């Protein structure tokens, strides 16, 4: 039972620290807020590492297969027998992996923020929000019930909203937080409908039962496949709607528009929420329901694959043209999540076919490390330069040696250069794609080349390119130790995370999968990545006109990509011109004229009538008496002659 307690404490400690800091932080704990948040998370991290160790090496495996273990469960709302919303904690390989990632990255961000957010007016509030987010994310990944995951899903959305809009006196941050919330909320509508469809079909909300019923031949599965709507079975629709929710959180095309804007939040927040943890919730959701996707609805899984591949490609193209370093990283995040998505999309269930699933989770793991590192590094640079624009940077390598080195490691990792973390996971993804879908493989190969190019464009622009003009900056050094330490730890992780024998732990069916490195296969992607790096080196190592020349050579395409393919404009067009004009304005007219008009009419009628008759109440006693007497006489007449 102490095991269950320790698992409840993993999300429980951040919740406690949120309550403590949220209620008392601003008044009493201003100075210590950071330490309270960090220490509670440190405990949480230790607990989740212990849990992971116990699960993977001691208790998780029964005859070679990792089990789904429900450690605690409380039935919260029971609708009918077997259909209930439970609050439970489920351990299985992916949830255990996720709690380790979430607590670890969150801990790094907490430590980093001690330096980065120092002197901030709402320091305690910031840590309260961070704790709230960590709590919600941990609750999300540990959920044992599909409705529970939805509740935490929304909580995560709220904390993301709060943190993006943390600088609420900046109009752009306010707009960005609203945009993020509305777009993801819109996607969550799909998720909710998907949950209803799936749970209606499967007659349960519990993940374990749901997956069991929808993957083996049961009456529920047969009736769901039998019920068809617009050419797809209700199962496919349910899964696609759930995926829509996932796509919203994970910034998949066409719901990705909020992610670049979300960079208005503090940089450590971007590292935690918009790079390493929350945005992979969509991937996690698909992975959670993966057996259903793979076994019962391969059509839906194909959609996941193509959406992922397409998002990966366009995000990479856009990333090549952006000049705000955080936006480059945002698009690169979107691109990498696209990789995870299509890796799931090309995967099958069980054994060798499950390679894509394992690769996706592996990439999720390594990506969390190096993307958090990239963002924290970018944060250190922004902290130093006080600007997000690449033009204001350049030549920083000697000013910020630690940041430079760790950033380089992360760039190499994301580009897929051996032996850094990204190489291993990306190779698995490419291999899975190669085995199952050649089109996606081609897209992925090209995208990974592009990835190397834009990451090193970023790297060279920040750290090389031109001399840094220090005169208009007071040189306050690279940053305090609290900022450097997470960079170093994450840098080490980005170096070694790839060597984790991941396929032994996380696979689609819980059984160990032996993977081998195909040296020959790796040649093409690594070669492409090196080419990308080389091009970036030629163009951005030092100031030269080459980059502009190439940009103008691409002409229209460059313009398109620079403006993010005008997707924001399309959204604005659709919402402002079409929805507002065709639906909003008529609705407003009906509201103002018919609904309000009806109410006003009845009010006016009442008013006019009472104006007419109010003089009857004159206050003249004798007038009343006459009426009273006349009335009485009238009654007498009626009773005497009419109603005899």
């Amino acid at each position, binding site marked *: 039972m102490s095991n269950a307690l320790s698992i409840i404490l993993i999300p429980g400690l951040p919740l406690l620290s949120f309550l403590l800091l949220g209620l008392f932080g601003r008044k009493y704990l201003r100075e210590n807020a950071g330490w309270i948040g960090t220490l509670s998370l440190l405990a949480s991290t230790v607990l989740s590492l212990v849990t992971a160790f116990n699960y993977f090496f001691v208790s998780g495996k029964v005859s070679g297969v990792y089990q789904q273990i429900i450690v605690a469960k409380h039935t919260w709302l029971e609708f009918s027998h077997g259909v209930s919303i439970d609050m439970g904690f489920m351990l299985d390989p992916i949830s255990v992996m996720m709690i380790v990632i979430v607590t670890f990255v969150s801990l790094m961000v907490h430590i980093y923020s001690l330096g980065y957010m120092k002197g901030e007016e709402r320091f305690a509030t910031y840590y309260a929000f961070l704790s709230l987010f960590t709590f919600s994310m941990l609750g999300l990944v540990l959920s044992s019930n599909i409705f529970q995951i939805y509740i935490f899903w929304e909580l995560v959305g709220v904390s993301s909203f709060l943190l993006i809009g943390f600088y609420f006196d900046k109009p752009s941050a306010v707009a960005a937080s609203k945009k993020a919330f509305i777009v993801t909320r819109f996607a969550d509508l799909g998720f909710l409908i998907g949950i209803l469809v799936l749970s209606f079909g499967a007659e349960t909300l519990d993940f374990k039962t749901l997956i069991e019923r929808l993957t083996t031949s049961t009456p529920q599965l047969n009736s769901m496949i039998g019920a068809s709507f617009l050419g797809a079975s209700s199962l496919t629709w349910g899964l696609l709607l759930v995926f829509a929710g996932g796509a919203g959180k994970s910034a998949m095309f066409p719901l990705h528009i909020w992610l670049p804007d979300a960079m208005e939040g503090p940089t450590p927040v971007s590292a935690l929420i918009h790079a390493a943890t929350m945005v992979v919730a969509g991937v996690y959701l698909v992975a959670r329901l993966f057996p259903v996707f793979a076994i019962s609805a391969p059509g839906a899984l194909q959609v996941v694959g193509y959406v992922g591949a397409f998002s990966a490609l366009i995000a990479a193209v856009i990333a090549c043209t952006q000049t705000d370093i955080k936006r480059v990283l945002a698009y690169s995040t979107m691109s990498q999540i696209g990789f995870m998505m299509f890796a799931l999309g090309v995967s099958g269930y069980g054994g060798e076919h499950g390679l894509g699933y394992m690769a996706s989770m592996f990439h999720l793991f390594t990506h969390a490390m190096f993307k958090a590192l990239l963002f924290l590094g970018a944060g250190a640079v922004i902290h130093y330069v006080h600007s997000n624009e690449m033009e204001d940077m350049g030549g920083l390598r000697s000013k910020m040696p630690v940041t430079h080195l760790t950033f380089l490691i992360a760039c190499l990792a994301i580009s897929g250069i051996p032996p850094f973390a990204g190489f291993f996971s990306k190779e698995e993804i490419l291999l899975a794609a190669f085995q199952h879908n050649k089109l996606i493989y081609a897209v992925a190969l090209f995208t990974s080349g592009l990835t190397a190019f834009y990451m090193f464009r970023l790297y060279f622009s920040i750290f090389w390119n031109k001399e840094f003009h220090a005169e208009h900056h007071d040189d306050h050094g690279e940053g305090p130790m609290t900022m450097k330490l997470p960079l170093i730890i994450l840098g080490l992780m980005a170096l070694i995370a790839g060597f984790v024998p991941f396929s032994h732990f996380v696979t689609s069916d819980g059984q160990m999968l032996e993977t081998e490195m195909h040296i020959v296969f790796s040649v093409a992607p690594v070669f492409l990545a090196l080419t990308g790096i080389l091009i970036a080196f030629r163009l951005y190592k030092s100031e030269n006109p080459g980059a502009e020349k190439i940009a103008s050579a691409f002409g229209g395409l460059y313009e398109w990509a620079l403006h993010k393919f005008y997707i924001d404009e399309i959204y604005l067009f659709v919402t402002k011109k079409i929805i507002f004009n065709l639906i909003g304005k008529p609705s407003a007219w009906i509201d103002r004229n018919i609904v309000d008009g009806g109410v006003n009419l009845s009010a006016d009628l009442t008013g006019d009538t009472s104006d007419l008759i*109010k*003089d009857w*109440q*004159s*206050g*003249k*006693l*004798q007038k009343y*008496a*006459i009426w009273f*007497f006349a009335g009485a006489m009238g009654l007498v007449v009626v009773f005497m002659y009419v109603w005899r």
Partner: protein
Amino acid sequence: MEVGLTHILFLSTALFFIGVYGFLTRRNTITMLMAIELLLNSVNINFIAFNKYLYGGKLEGVFFTLFLIAIAAAEAAVAIAIIINFYRNYKSIDVEDADSLKW
């Protein structure tokens, strides 16, 4: 000539309408109060007359009349109290001035 029920009812009706006329035309609230007494007394006469001519030997009509006299006394006390208060506030006992309770 024997005095019959009709004669007495005629008297009470006349009394009643004199009371109504007085209530509607007098402006002095005290006089109006007196008119009300006329109304009440016409009712009293009715009760007694019906009791005597139609239900001889029974007492209900007499009791009612006694009640009515008591009620009339109480009512007169309350009404005069109101009139005195009204006079204190408005320096008048004219019913035309008592018209502030309106829309």
